[in-house]
């Protein structure tokens, strides 16, 4: 079963990148996910200042705006998709993720299965 770990950074620096983030912790976590053979995909997202939002109205007209900026305290900073047997295992991996510490949090979402 595939689960997406949405890694939210709590504290954001003035440049829009996650504060309290230790690179070595992330390297170690990434290696652990790879070594466990559960890695499906995963990316770290660029700083929030680079984000752009697109909306398309009913008439097909496109609106492009800068942002969104951090309206809430938490900002999506990256994600993993892992393939593990059940939610408890997914929660264990989420708990090992450096993004779950300090002011951050990891949201675990099962990936919808529409039957292959």
């Amino acid at each position, binding site marked *: *079963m595939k689960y997406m770990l949405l890694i939210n950074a709590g504290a954001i620096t003035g440049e829009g990148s996650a504060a309290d983030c230790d690179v070595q912790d992330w390297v170690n976590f990434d290696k652990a996910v790879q070594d466990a053979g559960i890695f499906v995909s995963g990316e770290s997202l660029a700083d929030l200042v680079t984000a752009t939002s697109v909306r398309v109205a009913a008439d097909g007209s496109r609106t492009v705006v800068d942002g969104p900026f951090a309206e809430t305290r938490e900002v999506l900073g990256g994600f993993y998709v892992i393939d593990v*047997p*059940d*939610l*408890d295992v997914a*929660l264990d991996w989420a708990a090992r993720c450096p993004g779950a510490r300090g002011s951050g949090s990891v949201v675990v979402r*099962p990936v919808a299965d529409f*039957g292959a």
Partner: protein
Amino acid sequence: MTVSSAGGSEPSAAGPPPVPVETVAGAVESVFREEHGRLLAALVRRFGDLDLAEEVTSAALEAALVHWPVQGVPRSPGAWLMATARRKAVDRLRRDQAYAAKLALVRVDMVTEVPEAAEFPDDRLQLFFTCAHPALPEEARGALMLRCLAGLSTAEVARAYLVPAAAMAQRIVRAKRKIREARIPFRVPGADELPGRLPGVLQVLYSVFTEGYVASSGPLLQRVDLAGEAIRLVRILRRLLPAEREVTGLLALMLLVHARRAARTGPGGAVVLLEDQDRALWDGPMIAEGLALVRVALTGGPAGPYAVQAAIAALHDEAASVSTTDWPQVVALYDVLLALDPSPVVALNRAVAVAMRDGPAAGLAAVDAVGGAGRLRDYAPFHLARADLLQRLGRLVEAVEAYRRALDLAGTDPERDHLRRRLEGVGAQVGRLS
């Protein structure tokens, strides 16, 4: 002359008369209530799907209602129900291969062999942990436990929680959907995880109990059924985890509190405070059982929070009156509890015990210290404790104010009635003085 047994409809020696249908229905019901959780848990383990397990558990009961009146109640009703339920599950999976595939059962044949009348193992422990899983919404956990492990119908669970049946059904359906779609596993946590997970299970059971003890809202103060069901579930859990002393402590706590149920309410469901309760109405055998369990829960290592709370309840149950209660010991136990659970509610209870030990002035100082910085501003018992102590100190105007605040916050009609009577009492005192 022979001493007849309790029942009035014993079969005569001449031969077994046909079993009346209502007797069979009663037998089905009692067997079902006893076996429902075991049956469901075993089927969940077998098929890994709560919905299928529930469906065939119900179908097996219906089959029993059809067959037992004709063929008689089988010697081993639980095994009969189990075999029937399994057959129905296999039929269902044969008909619906897509569903079977979803459950990742490679071959339905795998589950066809049905050991008739064989004792099936008790798989309920994993169901306790699934129902109390922290990933489920808190308000669904108790409902799910009552539904799956106590064998209550959704309508019964709804009535117990004073929630419309449709709302309760939706709550349960949503929780089951999350179990299925997020794949919350049916498993007993390993020894390393148990200390982290067991308190969650106990907390759900305790919340079911307290919901029955003091309803959080509505016209009735006590709903004995819910408290009784919680006790029944903790007894089951204790059989499954005999070495876990906090399970024993929780059972002791529930019994020692539940033993006072007949004295807690007066005519019309009115609140009767501990100091005014007729202790002759307390349930002696239940207290005796609770006291024996407290000793077990307190022996063999540091006591957990439920064991300490049970020890406090035991001191109340053993005392002949409020004035002869061992208040220094109660305060000492609250100190222990506060170290384990440093919550303002525990601190408030400790402060009330201090008032009993050292008098209302010391008590009020302790209560106000706990309520500092507005921490318990919206907690009715805090204002009631203040009101009571202010009244005893003769600070009546402040007492009226505090009673009014407690009245605004009280959850049930009997509590409100009680507070109104207290308020009238203080009001009369104020009137005489002015």
